[in-house]
């Protein structure tokens, strides 16, 4: 028989206003095994915890029940408390009388009654608790970063600077991501390349960083501290050890009609290409689909041109398997193609562009060498209309439900840059709300309005039509209560951003959870924003939610700090509440292994002694370092062989019995 102490917390008025805590104490005192019960205003405070510690010593308690908030909040706190008083930390049970009781009831009588029942259930469970001990597992001191944009680069640099090895896997031929395509960056207007390319070079040259470019994550196995990841190296058809990045092959390549991804398809590239001048690594790559050699076996001009002899048409996919202690997801985003928005004429008119396309048009290294011209006729526009919130903040099937967050600021930047280069161009921005929270952000937007004379109109563009080579924009002006019909030479759509399409499959491989928009979910929205709920998986950048460059870099460094904290440990304590199989009951059906989401269960042939008979049976074996204690196997097991420590079947039944008494 356990000697149980019960501690009922008021949580200020959070619990005490709806639950008569004194009555709960009195009722629970009478439960079997309870030798001490008391209440206190804040049980989680230092004095509250001392109350528990003193009672454990004074009354020789062997089990503790704390009636308080959710175990997600303070189970770890109170486990430490009982441990400090000499008990096994798993001899503690929490009765959640806040979230599951006081917060959802208004009537004090009802609330008190339920709190007593929840307390009694926890007491019944703790009667059957046994001390549990965590195992340890070693930590592989290397990190994997998936995605080589500014988020991945920053995370990798920070981890590497702390002395740990980092591999970056990037699916494109170069690192740099979306930031490499940008012209200027708000709110300081420094050029994106000037601040990004040094970081790219640093990442490429760092002795602790290994770049896997033109690679994809193929398979992930293992668990925190011990991931095993298979990486697919796509064939470049270039020997990376020989290519010098001179670009001679690119000049000779006769296949010149492939839309250039880096310039958002606004111009064309060759079949053999270097993504852009500052690419890291600066290596050529052959686009197999566009290459004449791969179509008909002829050509071979690049082979003849390359003095280094780096062209290798026979390259094939390669698979590399490496071990990692931590994985950082930095898969980033894409801007949606507003092809579903017929009213803006994006599909029909070349002069209707997305803001990322406009970014390339403004960029000195872009398709127009930085000259602001209409894509349709190469002439300078006289007036430009910017449309905000295209595909963001909507509820229909073509919209994203969220605010893309960065558009207000980059549109202000675009408008300002246009006016700065060409004051004679008329610039109009149609907005729903201007959202500029951020250091120096609102001042930046106001500068566009007040200094540069950008027209900001509260209202939305209803439709765009084309007539006589000009775009006719019809929009509402809600403040003036009128409908506007104006000419524009260019329309720039601030289209929504969305997570990269590869994120979903990566999340599946990592068993990391995502929200309905395919953004990765953080372990806690406020208190653990850079960790996935899956241990050992960390989040960096827009893959977790829309954010601008300063926020991305801050989050990237935060994720790196978390990874460093993990890699600095030699061993990790495993979860003690893990499943285990009774091999005399196991019938070897494999159902538990099939439902295990973590791959923690394997089958082994073991010599089993059952009712005096010694025989070899195929039985389930749980790897306790991998098991997350979800309990799926225990409810699946048809023979009752599988049980979960800390949540054993007899404990659950005892709780149910106590509730139904």
């Amino acid at each position: 028989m356990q000697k149980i102490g019960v501690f009922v917390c008021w949580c200020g008025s959070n619990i005490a206003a709806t639950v008569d805590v004194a009555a709960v104490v009195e009722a629970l005192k009478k439960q079997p095994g309870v030798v001490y019960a008391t209440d206190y205003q804040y049980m989680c405070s230092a004095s509250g915890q001392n109350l528990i510690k003193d009672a454990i010593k004074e009354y020789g308690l062997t089990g503790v029940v704390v009636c308080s908030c959710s175990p997600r909040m303070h189970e770890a706190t109170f486990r430490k408390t009982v441990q400090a008083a000499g008990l096994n930390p798993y001899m503690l049970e929490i009765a959640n009388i806040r979230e599951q009781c006081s917060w959802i009831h208004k009537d004090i009588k009802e609330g008190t009654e339920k709190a007593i029942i929840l307390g009694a259930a926890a007491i019944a469970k703790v009667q059957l608790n046994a001390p549990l001990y965590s195992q340890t597992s070693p930590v592989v001191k290397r990190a994997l970063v998936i995605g080589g944009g500014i988020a991945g680069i920053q995370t990798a640099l920070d981890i590497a600077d702390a002395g740990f090895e980092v591999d970056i896997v990037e699916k494109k031929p170069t690192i740099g991501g979306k930031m490499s395509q940008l012209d200027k960056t708000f709110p300081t207007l420094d050029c994106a390349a000037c601040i990004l390319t040094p970081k790219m070079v640093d990442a490429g040259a760092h002795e602790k960083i290994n770049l896997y470019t033109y690679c994809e994550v193929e398979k992930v196995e293992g668990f925190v501290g011990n991931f095993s990841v298979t990486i697919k190296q796509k064939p470049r058809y270039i020997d990376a050890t020989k290519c010098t990045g001179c670009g001679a092959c690119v000049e000779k390549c006769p296949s010149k009609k492939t839309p250039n991804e880096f310039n958002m398809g606004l111009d064309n590239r060759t079949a053999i290409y270097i993504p852009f001048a500052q690419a890291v690594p600066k290596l050529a790559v052959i686009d197999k689909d566009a290459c004449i050699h791969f179509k008909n076996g002829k050509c071979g001009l690049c082979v003849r041109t390359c003095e280094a002899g780096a062209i290798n048409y026979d390259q094939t996919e390669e698979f590399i398997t490496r071990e990692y202690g931590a994985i950082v997801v930095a898969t980033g985003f894409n801007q949606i193609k507003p092809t579903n928005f017929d009213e803006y004429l994006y599909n029909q008119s070349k002069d209707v562009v997305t803001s990322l396309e406009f970014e390339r048009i403004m960029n000195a290294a872009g398709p127009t060498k930085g000259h602001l011209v209409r894509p349709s006729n190469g002439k300078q526009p006289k007036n430009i209309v910017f449309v905000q919130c295209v595909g963001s903040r909507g509820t229909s099937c073509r919209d994203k439900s969220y605010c893309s967050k960065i558009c207000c600021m980059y549109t202000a930047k675009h408008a300002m840059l246009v006016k700065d280069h060409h004051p004679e161009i008329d610039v109009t921005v149609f907005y729903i709300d201007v959202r500029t929270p951020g250091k120096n952000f609102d001042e930046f937007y106001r500068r566009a309005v007040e200094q540069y004379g950008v027209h900001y109109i509260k209202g939305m563009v209803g439709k765009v039509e084309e007539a006589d080579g000009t775009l006719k924009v019809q929009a509402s002006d809600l403040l003036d209560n009128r409908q506007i019909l104006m000419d524009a030479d260019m329309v720039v759509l601030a289209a929504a951003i969305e997570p990269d399409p590869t994120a979903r499959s990566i999340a599946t491989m990592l068993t990391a959870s995502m929200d309905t928009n395919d953004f990765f979910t953080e372990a806690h929205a406020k208190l653990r924003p850079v960790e996935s709920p899956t241990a050992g998986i960390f989040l960096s950048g827009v893959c977790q939610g829309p954010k601008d460059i300063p926020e991305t870099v801050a989050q990237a460094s935060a994720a790196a700090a978390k990874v460093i904290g993990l890699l600095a440990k030699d061993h990790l304590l495993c979860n003690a509440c893990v499943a285990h199989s009774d091999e005399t009951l196991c019938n070897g059906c494999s159902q538990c292994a099939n439902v295990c989401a973590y791959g923690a269960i394997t089958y082994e042939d073991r010599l089993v002694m059952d009712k005096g008979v010694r025989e070899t049976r195929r039985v389930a074996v749980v790897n306790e370092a991998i098991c997350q204690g979800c309990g799926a196997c225990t409810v699946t097991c048809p023979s009752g062989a599988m049980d979960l420590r800390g949540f054993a079947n007899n404990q659950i039944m005892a709780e149910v019995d106590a509730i139904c008494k």
Partner: protein
Amino acid sequence: MAVDKETILRISGVNPRQCMKCGKCSGTCPAYNEMEYHPHQFVSMVENGNLEPLLKSESLYLCLSCMACVQRCPRQVAPGKLVEAVRLAVVRQQNMDHLVPDQIPAMLDPELPQQAIVSAFRKYKK
């Protein structure tokens, strides 16, 4: 029977609280300049229970029922359905569920079709 907000919401099935006041309905409306009250104002005025001006307004009969505002509303508010609901409420006040041609106000533009009928056709075309 006075027409109240609940009646309009029930007839239309529209929830004006979904509106984020972007004004795309009024940006899109081809009859904007004909109408005294514009699509976004219908949403706002119904939400605020300010129905009297709408019930009396000619705008009810000038809406083309083209449903462009319904199609393009990013929040799926369907302002056009609100216009139709107010128009129906007016018709029903006359103890009828249809409009007698003679009763269509004389001040209407003779070049425009009778919108209550056009709407009905659109609604029942399938």
